């Protein structure tokens, strides 16, 4: 009986600890988001969206940084999405059991978790050194390199969920394979693929490290893709680390903007995924 009591006690203890661990995890989510909201809301003013980043001591907004972030994210998505989808298509549709496919899949998964600052160094060597100056193009390419593995992964996973009977039916009608993939597989997997792209955008929207050495920053309004361009993450980094109170307020405002965007994209992507036609 003593043993039984001890086992029950151990069990109750472990259950309580597991529950506490979950509470502990959620606590940080609540803490981070609530302090972010608390500090960030004060910074959300019309000026934030209409004025450019100020020199220390004067008022301003984040207009140029918001613009730069949107432009670079957009270009990165436009480069990264087709690349990722085509590579993912190869893995799912053409490389069943092939050695080459396994290697690509393995390397892609490593790129998926590789430190983003390494990507920044790579693009610095690849573009900034060659061109002789920092530029928004380099920033966009660095972000695109982060988009690719995410899209490759989700595209492959989603295409693998498409029932083979669909492909067989289309092939039986005499359709060439590329048409089967484009007209049948893609259509069946489209929701999942869009989810993947949304998650990739969410991932790069807040990426800072790869932009530090590529797009750098720009205090002024600039639409020149061949020159350094302001962007929210780097501005937040610079302003938050500065000793100026009004810069720090702007940093909180920017942080809130990024977080809202990222969480919105994430939750939207999840909603879309759970709504999707094929599930495991």
């Amino acid at each position, binding site marked *: 009986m003593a043993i039984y009591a001890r*086992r*029950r006690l151990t*069990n109750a203890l*472990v*259950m309580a*600890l*597991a529950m506490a*661990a*979950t509470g*502990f*995890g*959620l606590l*940080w*989510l609540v803490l*981070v*988001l609530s302090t*972010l909201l608390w500090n960030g809301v004060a910074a959300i003013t019309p000026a934030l969206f209409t004025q450019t980043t100020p020199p220390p001591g004067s008022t301003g907004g984040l207009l140029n940084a918001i613009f730069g972030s949107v432009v670079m994210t957009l270009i990165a998505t436009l480069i990264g999405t087709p*690349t990722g989808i*085509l*590579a993912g298509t190869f893995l799912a*549709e*053409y*490389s069943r*059991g092939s050695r*080459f496919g396994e*290697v*690509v899949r393995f*390397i*892609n*998964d490593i*790129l998926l*978790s*590789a*430190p*983003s*600052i*390494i990507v920044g*160094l790579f693009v*610095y*060597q690849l573009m900034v050194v060659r061109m002789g100056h920092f530029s928004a193009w380099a920033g966009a390419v660095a972000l695109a390199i982060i988009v690719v593995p995410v899209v*490759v992964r989700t595209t492959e996973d989603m295409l*693998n969920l498409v029932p083979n009977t669909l492909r067989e039916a289309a092939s039986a009608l005499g359709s*060439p*394979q*590329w048409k089967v993939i484009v007209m049948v597989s893609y259509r069946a997997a489209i929701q999942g693929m869009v989810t993947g792209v949304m998650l990739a955008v969410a991932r790069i929207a807040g*990426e*800072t*490290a790869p932009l*530090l*050495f590529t797009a*750098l920053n720009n205090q002024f309004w600039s639409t020149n893709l061949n020159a350094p361009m302001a962007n929210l*993450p780097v501005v937040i*980094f610079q302003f*938050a*680390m500065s000793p100026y109170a009004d810069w720090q307020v702007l940093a*909180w405002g920017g*942080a809130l903007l*990024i977080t809202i965007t990222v969480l919105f994209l994430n*939750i939207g992507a*999840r909603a879309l995924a759970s709504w999707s036609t094929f599930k495991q």
Partner: protein
Amino acid sequence: MSADIALPRVAPANSRRHAPGDFIFRHLTFLFALLVLLILGGVIVALVDGAVPALRHFGISFLYTDVWNPVTEKFGALAPIYGTLVTSAIAMVVGIPVAFGVAMFITEICPIWLKRPLATMIELLAAIPSIIYGIWGLFVFAPFVQQYIQPAIISSLGQIPGVGALFAGPPLGIGVLTAGFILAIMVLPFISSIMRDVFETAPPMLKESAYGLGATRTEVVLHVVLPYTRIGVVGGIMLGLGRALGETMAVTFVIGNAHRISASILQPGTTISASLANEFTEAVGDLYLSSLIALGLILFVITFIVLAFAKLMLLRLQKRAGG
């Protein structure tokens, strides 16, 4: 992990009629798959190319010298390597038990209707960008640590002879321990979601047999589920470790960026990625720049090994589960 019967997805021989379209599309997708490998190859070439001047100048001693002096142009990677390893170790010590608890709660204890929302919320921790953890750590968490946690640690653990050296010094708020703790929160969702996934692969029959013999939930998890999924759990932990090693912005904000090795984990330090983020754009002189790229190369090699190991572990589990 689809279990469908292998349909020959290569173009059948009788489709000669469609040859041009299929040929083009197939090779187009192949080229882009090749691009994934080229990215990795490019990263290696670029890093090695950039690191060569520093490595040639300092030789192998670059790895174990702890001097970092831009003025005299003497550089050694020991302090950032040390900081990277120590912060990641702290992250693992704090993160693994919590992640295990979360995974156990979600798979074994919580009611089904709560599973999805709970899992999503934990995963949102991973969605929050690194820089947000950074700014939050600097303005909210570090002051809190400085005021309440560090004084308590110093007056209790810091007084123990021997071990006390680990917790000595003034409470600064920022430092190695704070950085490690924030890393723990950041890797928690990665580790717990993989643990959750692999726990789900444990065959229900095994679990039910154990329950039938009168095992408690704890015993089922520890003696049935965990042994069955051990490889996957190790894989998940390695994946989290890979993330922690390369995490940049959150650490840069709170570690204090001091190129030195202190015995105390309450003191400022630096990591490879924090050094890069802080110094790269301000580095003057080829040797300084090259030393920083060499740091990047070291980080890349370490994370590559850890991540490859993680991936191999997870693949093994997948194969066994009949993927």
